[in-house]
């Protein structure tokens, strides 16, 4: 059961046991007692917090349920500034984040850079895909990119991020790899929808031509054959049932575009606590339960933790910043 919303107390327990049961973990004794999801309930970050929080309890890595706090605002900026200003040293707090949050940092949309926080680990990743309708004139990535380079204004691309967001950047990186000159990039039309599902539906209705989004969100449409996958943006082919989908790399375009899910914590958390939190998350990652949860939600389990993850985040931010500058998202 992946997205079980786990709150601190259920009605059943409270109704039976009454007021005396109320407790929350003492703030310093345990590694993780609260997870901030910087979004409304129901989204990807909320899912990350709730599924990981639930597994931490089930695997006895924490004694009491992990409290999930929703703190929406500014694509994570509100939670980021809240932790930076009010709770930089809370060693029991983790905040869900992903490539989307990292892109925001790279484009200067957060009040602070990567150094403001300590980056704990990533637990899994979603993979970018480039799709067309099953009746589209484009049979291969080569065809699509050729048209894109030659007649950039003949295509309307869509995805779930805004112009210059991660879905858009991934698609433009492909266009660049296909030899599109930088001054032409502005003429490819980009249409933003509220998610991968709506974008694909609009494509099925013939309103847009190409969709760039995450695999996990739209896996059902691939399985049903309503869409044609031109490229998967991973280094290696994906595990079953998506093993047949061609990667961009295998078609000669060296572009990858993951959307990982992970956590950060406040920048003033001690090394000792930081290590303990990373260890806890690693134990969780290595469990079979996490593998199941990840797979059910279209994520590929993938571990990077501690200093390795810290370096990875910084490096990715640099890369996204460079790409954003090259294609003109930021000046």
């Amino acid at each position, binding site marked *: 059961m992946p997205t079980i919303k786990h*709150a*601190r*107390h*259920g*009605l059943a327990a*409270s*109704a039976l046991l009454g*007021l005396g*049961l*109320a*407790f*929350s973990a*003492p*703030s310093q004794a345990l590694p993780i007692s609260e997870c901030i999801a910087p979004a409304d309930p129901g989204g990807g970050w909320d899912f990350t917090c709730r599924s990981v929080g639930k597994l931490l309890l089930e695997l006895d890595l924490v004694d009491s349920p992990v*409290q999930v*706090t929703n703190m929406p605002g500014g694509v994570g900026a509100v939670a980021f500034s809240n932790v930076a200003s009010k709770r930089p040293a809370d060693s029991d707090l983790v905040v869900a984040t992903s490539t989307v949050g990292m892109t925001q940092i790279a484009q200067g949309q957060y009040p602070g850079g990567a150094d403001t926080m300590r980056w704990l680990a990533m637990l899994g990743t979603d993979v970018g895909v480039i799709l067309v309708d099953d009746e589209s004139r484009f049979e291969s990535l080569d065809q699509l990119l050729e048209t894109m380079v030659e007649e950039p204004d003949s295509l309307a691309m869509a995805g779930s991020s805004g*112009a*210059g967001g991660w879905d858009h950047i991934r698609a433009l990186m492909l266009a660049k790899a296909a030899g599109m000159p930088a001054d032409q*990039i*502005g003429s*490819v*039309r*980009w249409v933003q929808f509220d998610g991968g599902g709506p974008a694909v539906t609009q494509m099925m209705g013939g309103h847009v031509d190409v969709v760039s989004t995450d695999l996990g969100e739209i896996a059902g449409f691939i399985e049903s054959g309503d869409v044609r996958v031109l490229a998967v943006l991973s280094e290696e082919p994906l595990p079953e049932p998506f093993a047949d989908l061609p990667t961009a790399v295998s078609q000669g375009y060296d572009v990858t575009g993951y959307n990982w899910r992970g956590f950060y914590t406040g920048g003033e958390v001690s090394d000792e606590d930081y290590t303990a939190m990373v260890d806890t998350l690693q134990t969780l990652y290595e469990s079979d339960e996490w593998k199941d949860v990840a797979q059910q939600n279209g994520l590929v389990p993938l571990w990077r933790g501690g200093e390795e993850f810290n370096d990875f985040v910084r490096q990715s931010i640099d890369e996204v910043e460079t790409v954003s500058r090259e294609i*003109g*998202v930021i000046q």
Partner: protein
Amino acid sequence: MHEPGMDAGRIPGVIGDRIAGVVLAVLAAGAWWHSHSFATGFMQPVGPGAFPRLVSVPLGLLALYLILRPGFNQRWPHRAALLRQVGALLLLGGYAVFLEPWGFLPASLVTVIVLVRLFGAPWKPSLASGTILTVGLYALFEFALGMPLPNMPGLSW
């Protein structure tokens, strides 16, 4: 607006509507002006400022029409009522300020008791109903609905 007995409370809105019209016209003009500061952004034929401008035009025109042709208002509150309302707003504003630093129970207890007083109840029922409401709400949200409320500082129970 046409509930029985309400029509007696209607007054011509010459002053009220005109003030509202001016405020709204200024708001529309401000929104129009400010929308030009939104960077047109990356690769869009229609930028983030277009829709606010599209809305502020009819808003401004309707506001001007309201200044020219004011309608009716409800009777405005008298001084005693106004004082009670301002008092309630200050109290609730204070509640919002102190909710986190004090914790839910003490902040709510004080607020509810004063609020019940403001609504015209004598002290005794105020104290009683204030306590019942506070504890009841705390139990409902914290235990039954599982939504954590801020605790008193230093009290982790």
